[in-house]
């Protein structure tokens, strides 16, 4: 029983990180109908950025959060401006292939310059575990989750409360009507792509506090993210948030009950069952 509670807590903790990653992906999809296959690799870049800032300048990953956010925001903007926007006018397949290409390029380029070895940051400000009446809470994982939720909530508030945020939602709901309002949709595309990437940058810094860092780390996160976005309903931010936690819990509990080797299989079985019963996902419309 205690073990089950422990796994449940672990599941929620990783799930909240998944939520943040998936929100970025679903935001990009919702606004411009582009599936960014390089989302996971952007995360990898973020993690490496934190790693090198730590190794070369002694910056703790926690303090690299804002640096990562800005750097990935700019990376997202550049990638949109110079690559994505060029294929937006083309067929959907071109958009799919181009982000897939970026993903392969980034992962392999990282392997080339940084070697495919696993790395980790040894001494961060966060270490150790809390023991709450038998329940073990890893401090870096806990802080990572809190940081992720805070960032997700920050994005919610930005979208719901600010003029630009509402414009992003308007473009997501009805692009032509948004143009009629005088919204420059090209600028909103670029901004959404940049914000989606910045969210991943934040997640990268948070994960760098305790996760292994290697060039292909984006692959596993990326795949799970797609599953979460589809499960939550493409383009639905609330859906992605809920589905992220769900996937985290199912993955951890499933791994505990059956076998850790099956944890991803269990997630995808849940996904298949959901889309079979409800093809639009949990919060799709």
């Amino acid at each position: 029983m205690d073990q089950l509670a422990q796994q449940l807590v672990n599941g929620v903790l990783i799930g909240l990180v998944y939520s943040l990653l998936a929100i970025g992906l679903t935001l990009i999809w919702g606004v411009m109908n582009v599936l960014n296959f390089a989302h996971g690799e952007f995360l990898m870049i973020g993690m490496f950025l934190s790693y090198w800032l730590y190794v070369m300048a002694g910056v703790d990953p926690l303090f690299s959060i804002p640096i990562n956010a800005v750097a990935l925001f700019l990376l997202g903007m550049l990638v949109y401006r110079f690559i994505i926007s060029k294929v937006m006018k083309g067929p959907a397949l071109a958009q799919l292939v181009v982000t897939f290409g970026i993903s392969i390029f980034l992962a392999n380029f990282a392997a080339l310059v940084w070697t495919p070895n696993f790395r980790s940051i040894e001494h961060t400000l966060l270490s150790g575990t809390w023991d709450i009446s038998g329940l073990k809470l890893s401090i870096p994982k806990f802080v990572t989750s809190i940081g992720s939720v805070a960032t997700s909530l920050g994005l919610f508030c930005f979208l719901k409360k600010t003029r630009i945020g509402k414009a992003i939602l308007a473009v997501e709901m009805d692009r032509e009507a948004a143009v009629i309002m005088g919204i420059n949709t090209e600028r909103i595309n670029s901004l959404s792509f940049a914000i989606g990437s910045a969210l991943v940058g934040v997640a990268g810094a948070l994960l760098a506090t305790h996760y292994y860092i290697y060039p292909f780390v984006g692959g596993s996160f990326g795949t799970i993210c797609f599953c979460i976005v589809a499960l939550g309903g493409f383009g639905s931010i609330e859906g992605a948030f809920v589905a992220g936690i769900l996937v985290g819990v199912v993955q951890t509990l499933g791994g505990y009950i059956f076998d850790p080797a099956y944890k991803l299989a269990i997630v995808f079985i849940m996904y298949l069952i959901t889309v079979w019963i409800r093809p639009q996902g949990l919060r799709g419309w």
Partner: protein
Amino acid sequence: MLLVNNLSVGYKGLLAIQDASFKVNKGEIVSLIGSNGAGKTTMLKAILGLLKPMKGEIRLNGEVISGQPAYDVVKKKISLVPEGRRLFSRLSVQDNLLLGAYTVQNKDVIAESLEMVLRLFPWVKERAGQRAGTLSGGEQQQVAIARGLMSRPDLLMLDEPSLGVMPKVVSEIFTTVERIAAEGVTVLLVEQNVFEALQVCHRAYVLQTGRIVMEGTGPELSQSDLVRKAYLGM
């Protein structure tokens, strides 16, 4: 105020508008009537900059606006209430109105505009927090008009405001159009409901398969054979 000169607009090689010329003077209500597919919506979209014309030009107060992107045209105080209302259904009524004022930077001006549209549609005040998608067709149309007014347009273009609205609300919509015009807003009205459209307007143009085939005052057109036979069913 608005001058359309020999305008041709096409979609993928098909001409939707051919060599159309017309004008809207300041303070007028001008109706553009015609059947489905005559090119009315295309005309409004071309004026706003959503479609690029193949030939001809559109002038607003003398300045050529054809070829400019919509987000620049909207700043020149033209606003479109699109066919089918196109509210942002998952946003609140209030947010929809605020998006109508997206091109306005000054907060005081926006607050003033909000006050103005609430005077026009007092019921909106209590429903401001409601999701726009949950309103009835007639209510949505009124909010869409209010949203169109939030940018303080000099020229308001309405695309089929009576479509999908309960018959008894239709006359209310047209009364609103007259009230808006009375406050000094120039109105370009596109309608399939030809009878009502000819009653409220000062002048009207008849559009058939992309060409303007007739123009005149409301009463003139109501009495013409073409309009009586083709659109009024007499």
